[in-house]
């Protein structure tokens, strides 16, 4: 069970003077159960790339295989793909339209051909997973707070029981508390439901803490595809793409240069703190 992109390319404004390549000859394999961070500068092609993964954009060239089947085969049902590959767009709260939260979450499962019971079970389950309490189920989604709206919108995609969940900048425009909340939520969903998560972001900080694998994309091409520590070894190249390695990692590297014996590979605040404490002999 996996998603494979084989040499896909996509151009915007094909055939006009404004033709630009958004995705260039990308080959990518997404096996089951990974937590992947897809990182790139604004306009690097990451949003275009992920829309290929559930068939919203058809590549100009190249093939996409889901569990071994070509998704543009005649008898392949794109709706099945869209059920199994859930895509949460940027600012997903803008897609809410129903009169109550539960109805909005039910929209996906109902479209995907769930029975009434299955759909309701999936919807309640998804709302629980994103931490929306029973008291809000019958509220209008437009009356919720920003963070709550976003969680409802994520639940709307989660309720289709996807095997792969792709999220485009799920923390954009949220305060620090909201960010951590959403990211922790994703980690929990990843661990409990064992689904693959692809987190699209331009923040190394967010991705470093959660992802097991980082894909760096710039100008429509993949530059690095490795575990976080390995990717962060290329600090200078990342900088040229307008990406910063996490501040914690920058700090320990500077300390190391100054001759302190700290662990250079720290990615999170906790790791960094522990390493510095150890170095200075503080408990």
């Amino acid at each position, binding site marked *: 069970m996996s998603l494979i992109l084989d040499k896909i390319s996509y151009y915007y404004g094909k055939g006009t003077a404004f033709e630009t390549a958004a995705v260039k000859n990308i080959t990518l394999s997404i096996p089951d159960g990974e937590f992947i961070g897809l990182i790139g500068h604004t306009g690097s092609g990451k949003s275009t790339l992920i829309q290929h993964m559930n068939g*919203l954009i058809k590549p100009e060239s190249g093939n996409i295989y889901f569990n071994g089947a070509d998704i543009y085969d005649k008898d392949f049902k794109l709706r099945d793909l*869209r059920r199994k590959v859930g895509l949460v767009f940027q600012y997903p709260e*803008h897609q809410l*339209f129903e009169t109550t939260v539960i109805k909005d979450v039910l929209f996906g499962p109902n*479209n995907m051909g769930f029975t009434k019971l299955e759909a309701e079970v999936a919807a309640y389950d998804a709302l629980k997973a994103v931490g929306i309490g029973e008291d809000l189920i019958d509220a209008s989604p437009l009356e919720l707070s920003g963070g709550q709206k976003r969680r409802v919108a994520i639940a709307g995609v989660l309720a289709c029981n996807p095997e792969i969940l792709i999220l485009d900048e799920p923390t954009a425009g949220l305060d620090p508390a909201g960010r951590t909340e959403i990211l922790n939520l994703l980690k929990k969903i990843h661990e409990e439901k064992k689904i693959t998560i692809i987190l699209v972001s331009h923040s190394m900080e967010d991705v470093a803490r959660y992802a097991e694998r980082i894909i760096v994309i710039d100008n429509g091409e993949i530059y690095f595809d490795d575990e976080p520590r390995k990717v962060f070894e290329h600090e200078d190249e990342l900088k040229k793409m307008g990406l910063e390695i996490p501040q914690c990692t920058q700090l320990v590297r500077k300390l190391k240069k100054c001759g302190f014996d700290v662990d250079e590979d720290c990615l999170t605040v906790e790791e960094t703190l522990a390493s510095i404490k150890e170095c200075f002999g503080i408990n």
Partner: protein
Amino acid sequence: MLRDITLGQYYPAESVIHRLDPRTKFLGTLAFIVALFLFKTFWGFLLCGGFIIFVTALAKLPIKFLIKGMRPILFLLLFMMIFNLLLTPGEIIGQWWIFRVTKEGVYAALFMGLRLVMLVFGSSIMTYTTTPNKLTSGMESVFGFLKIFKVPVHELAMMISIALRFIPILLDETNKIMKAQQARGADFETGGLIKRAKALVPLLIPLFVSAFRRAEELAEAMEARCYHGGKGRTKMKPLKYHLRDLIAYLSLIGLIVGCVFIP
């Protein structure tokens, strides 16, 4: 499917027509339309046709562009020509079942058709060579005299420019919401009329919500910059007539006079 809609069809190029004052272009287009209905003979067509080809060449517009602009009125054009052809009384030159084609009908259809084509050509040259903003600013100035009659000219012009400004943004938004709902299994493309109309609900509601949100944000931003309507408001780029505008006006007067006096 939404990408095909082009509104505010400005075609960027460096030409003397592009540089003309928007008022000149607006009044000029009106004058050209008037001229189109002044002549009665074939020579008038030649004059107006020559004029429009000359202006197109000056504006460096590709003919392909102008012809593409004809597509929306194609149906209307055919409709008008067929009715003129069949329903004009006069000397009968052909007859088939209940249809009668007269000599006058052929002339009327040809004249009507050509006039309509040139009318659309003329006004599309204006929209192709003038940015929507300049156009509204020109119209505001042209209709400025209506302020005496308490018509809120500035406010109307501002509304038009804001509306034009928001068309691409809302199109983009529509596209995004459509994709987001498709990712949740929405289907906009199959089914009967009623099913399709129903399928639009998940698209239209978020679109309206976002349009209202944007409108509110914009209103607040304008108020924060002390916008309070047109009274006493100056322009960053005031409209100014140049020599080329005078030449344009003179040639338009020439065209109208020509159309009136042509045999």
